[in-house]
């Protein structure tokens, strides 16, 4: 027991260690079950590449934008951390109170500690990534005007404040996302259609990103003093929320592609009909909100050329990722690797030559979907 400072013999620590060990094993096994070593190495390289690209290409303009709106940057980070924390707290509280560990003879305090650790981990990881990116930007001398450290401090304060805010905000309501009555057609026996399949990604997005949760956060955020005019503050928050919505909508499209394909595979539904039904509403929403966000970024002072390029890159990523998800509907490791590689390639293409990533992604998606439909 030398060197353990008595921790090994402390009953509370031993109990907590069981939970920590379960967490570690679950995480490690989840990764091992999905990825081999070379896939992990490739993913690491890909992530490093994307971070390097972020630093060299977008870093200076984002840091200068954030430097001009320090408090707003902090508030955006706070909102994001609050959302992650609020969602995480509910998820992990349910997990430790109703999951397979719930019947173990553990103190409530031990479970609370684990809930807190697991809840705080995602926003902390985001802060770590931001800090690493900013440090890399300073070390590579891409940014030299001294705005980095105030931005980093603003992000750190925002994240910590957001974690506290998300922890103490009221929890989301459980289980059922919307009142059933809003979806009932009352026409059993009428003409069947795939409309419900089209609405599924949108509904999934609403469940993951409840307007009510965001509205609560907006109220808190708007009560804080900002270093910009009221209009600019609302524009910043609006851009943040729409950006969040677009990312969650993409994630929901991937989820629905997988779940829907699993569920409908034993039916004679053709791939083309299935793909169109799943994609049509997300495509419309992505186009509409990407366009509006571009306008808002320009209004906030971003170079129109860069804002347009950013929107095109996002749409290219959406096209490539959603088509890959539809073709590999099982959520296989091959799918994840393809998604990662396609994101890296598209960002590299857009960096080298503007306005090329979107046509490339559309050709790639069309080719992939066509091949899947034929097979």
């Amino acid at each position, binding site marked *: 027991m030398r060197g353990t400072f008595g921790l090994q013999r402390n009953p509370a620590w031993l109990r907590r260690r069981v939970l920590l060990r379960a967490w570690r094993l679950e995480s490690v096994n989840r990764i091992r079950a999905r990825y081999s070593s070379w896939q992990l190495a490739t993913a690491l390289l890909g992530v490093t590449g994307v971070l390097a690209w972020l630093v060299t290409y977008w870093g200076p303009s984002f840091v200068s934008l954030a430097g001009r709106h320090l408090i707003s940057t902090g508030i955006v980070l706070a909102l994001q951390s609050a959302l992650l924390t609020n969602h995480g707290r509910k998820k992990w509280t349910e997990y430790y109170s109703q999951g397979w560990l719930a019947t173990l003879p553990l103190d409530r305090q031990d479970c609370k500690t684990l809930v807190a650790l697991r809840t705080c981990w995602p926003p902390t990881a985001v802060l770590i990534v931001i800090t690493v990116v900013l440090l890399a930007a300073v070390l590579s001398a891409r940014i030299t005007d001294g705005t980095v450290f105030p931005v980093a401090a603003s992000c750190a304060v925002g994240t910590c404040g957001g974690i506290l805010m998300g922890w103490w905000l009221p929890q989301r309501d459980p289980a059922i996302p919307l009142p059933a009555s809003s979806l009932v057609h009352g026409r059993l026996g009428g003409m*069947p259609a795939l409309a419900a399949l089209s609405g599924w990604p949108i509904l999934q997005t609403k469940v993951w990103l409840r307007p009510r949760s965001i509205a609560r956060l907006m109220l808190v955020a708007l009560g804080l003093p900002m270093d910009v005019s009221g209009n600019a503050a609302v524009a910043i928050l609006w851009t943040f929320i729409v950006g969040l919505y677009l990312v969650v909508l993409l994630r929901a499209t991937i989820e629905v592609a997988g779940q829907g394909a699993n569920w409908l595979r034993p*039916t004679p*539904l053709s791939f083309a009909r299935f793909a169109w039904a799943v994609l049509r509403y997300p495509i419309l929403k992505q186009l509409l909100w990407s366009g509006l966000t571009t306008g808002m970024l320009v209004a906030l002072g971003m170079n129109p050329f860069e804002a347009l390029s950013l929107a095109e890159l996002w749409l290219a990523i959406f096209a490539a990722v959603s088509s890959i998800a539809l073709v590999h509907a099982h959520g296989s490791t091959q799918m994840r690797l393809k998604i990662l590689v396609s994101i890296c390639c598209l960002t590299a293409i857009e960096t080298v030559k503007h306005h090329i990533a979107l046509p490339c992604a559309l050709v790639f998606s069309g080719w992939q979907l066509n091949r899947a439909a034929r097979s």
Partner: protein
Amino acid sequence: MTEPLLQISKLSAGYGIRRVLHGIDLEISRGEWFSLLGPNGSGKSTLLRCVSGQVTPTSGTVLIGGACVSRAPRDAKRLLGYAHPPERLPGLLTGEQCLEIYAAAHDLPAIDPEVLDLAEDFRLRPFLNQFVDSYSLGTRQKLSALLALLGNPSLIVFDEAFNGLDPASSLVLKHHLQERIHSGRCAVLLATHALDTVLSYSSRAALLLDGGLARTWSQVELDSMRTGNPGALEVAMAQVASAS
């Protein structure tokens, strides 16, 4: 002799490097209720997933009504009704929406009135406008059965479909399936552990052990067990299992 509705020949399948099924040969004709028995992990669900095209076999063929499931999946699946395990139903759709999507996938002009009547018999109608997420296990199981019966399929595949159903609904479903079978509209392939269901309703049964068919029981053999010694099937299964 009529052509078999389901023809499985030299079927092998697995997940990654793990081989689950090997050398399965099986034929099921219209008007038959075929039960598949076997211990946990013996490959029953994998076999059913091969039949429904969810798992691609490593070798061998599965033909439904003469159409190969892997080469002509749409033709094969037009004849197939597969009941998903309850946990795989989409939680964010209502029961009604699930029925609508399945009916549209089968190109039906409307949801079968027969299926809606069965929903009534199941006392499921009040739940159809609620999210599947809010359903109990039994309610999900009922919805899963209804989805499998949409479009008047020729081959109905159930994977432990009576688990979680209340006795009354279970009886309704069994009688409904029997009615379909007796009218020669379909064949039923059921994976189950319930030996009483096998003895009372099946026309043939087979025991799957370690990925291979270890023993099959004909209609005559099942009839003799039914009338003579109802415990004989259990004993026979134990004997086969210990001999292998």
